[in-house]
């Protein structure tokens, strides 16, 4: 299947809201869903094309919200699933029960961006040195932790 076909298939078979659906390249497509539907979409992808390979989960601070992007390989196509998480809410459902490979990548998101993964089977703090201050997320741009860094470099 090529990426445009995959996008078309999702548009016709997935019964939820899509915030984004495009295929800029022959092997690369982008799909977006609202924050609440992430588990539903992951389940849809696994049901349709399983076993899928989850390459990683990227977080990106876009100012008002944090983009969480799930990079899947489904049926030979790179399927990027984008979910926007409002900084005022800062929560997203886990997909680990559906895609076990997500377990570490989801922890990484919590650590670097402070997005709480709701329902994560193993939600302990896992990132950065033991003495890293609480509530300081290195890749979150409104909370850069610069002062702390300076102090330690001095």
């Amino acid at each position, binding site marked *: 299947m090529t990426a445009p076909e995959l996008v078309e298939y999702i548009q016709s078979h997935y019964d939820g809201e899509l915030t984004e659906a495009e295929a800029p390249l022959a092997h690369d497509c982008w799909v977006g869903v609202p924050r609440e539907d992430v588990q539903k979409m992951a389940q849809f992808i696994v049901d349709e094309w399983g076993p899928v390979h989850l390459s990683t989960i990227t977080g990106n601070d876009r100012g008002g919200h944090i983009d969480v992007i799930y990079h899947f390989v489904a049926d030979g196509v790179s399927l990027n699933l984008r979910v926007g998480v409002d900084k005022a809410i800062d929560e997203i459902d886990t997909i680990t029960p559906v895609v076990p490979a997500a377990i570490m990548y989801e922890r990484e998101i919590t650590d670097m961006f402070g997005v709480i993964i709701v329902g994560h089977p193993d939600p302990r703090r896992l990132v*950065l*040195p*033991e003495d890293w201050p609480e509530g300081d997320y*290195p890749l979150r741009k409104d909370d850069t932790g*610069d002062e702390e*860094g300076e102090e*330690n*470099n001095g």
Partner: protein
Amino acid sequence: MLNGLVKWARGKSPWVCHLNCGSCNGCDIEIIAALMPRFDLERLGVLLEGTPRHADVLMATGPVTRQIRDRVVRVYDQVPDPKFVVAVGTCGVSGAPFYPGYNVLGGVDAAIPVDMYVPGCPARPDAIAYGVLRLLATLDPDAQALVEEIEANHDTEGLIYTPEQMAAQREGTEATLGESPARNNDAAEA
């Protein structure tokens, strides 16, 4: 008498412990390569030792990260006196290019005192061998003779830095670079 024996043994056969303080692996591989058949540091009596408690020389690579600082100090304390520390690679020298990241403290000397700096990215096995030999020269007259022979026949300028040279270098760099934290060490491309 015993002291003389210990000094002789140290000079003839220094045991090296390799310590990764947050390096990218490049220099670590080159340290192993220096001990392998091609460069064969073992012919000089250098032996790679697993535990710091048996080591005479600590070869530390990489910028010291925040999480490993305490461990580095602990390992350093375990090495019996007299001990030498060789900072291998440009990261071990100054922390560049990772300095000043939020989790990077700087070169190896941010955590423990260093006796010899071997720059290079990654440091070359021959430069590492030369650095070790220079340290041995302070203990062993044979090694001293070897160092003199090497220096007479090869250009060793910039291959390694002693702590004094390093201090002078830093002063110079800081004066020219001013605020910029990036310290450029012209790597030993010999």
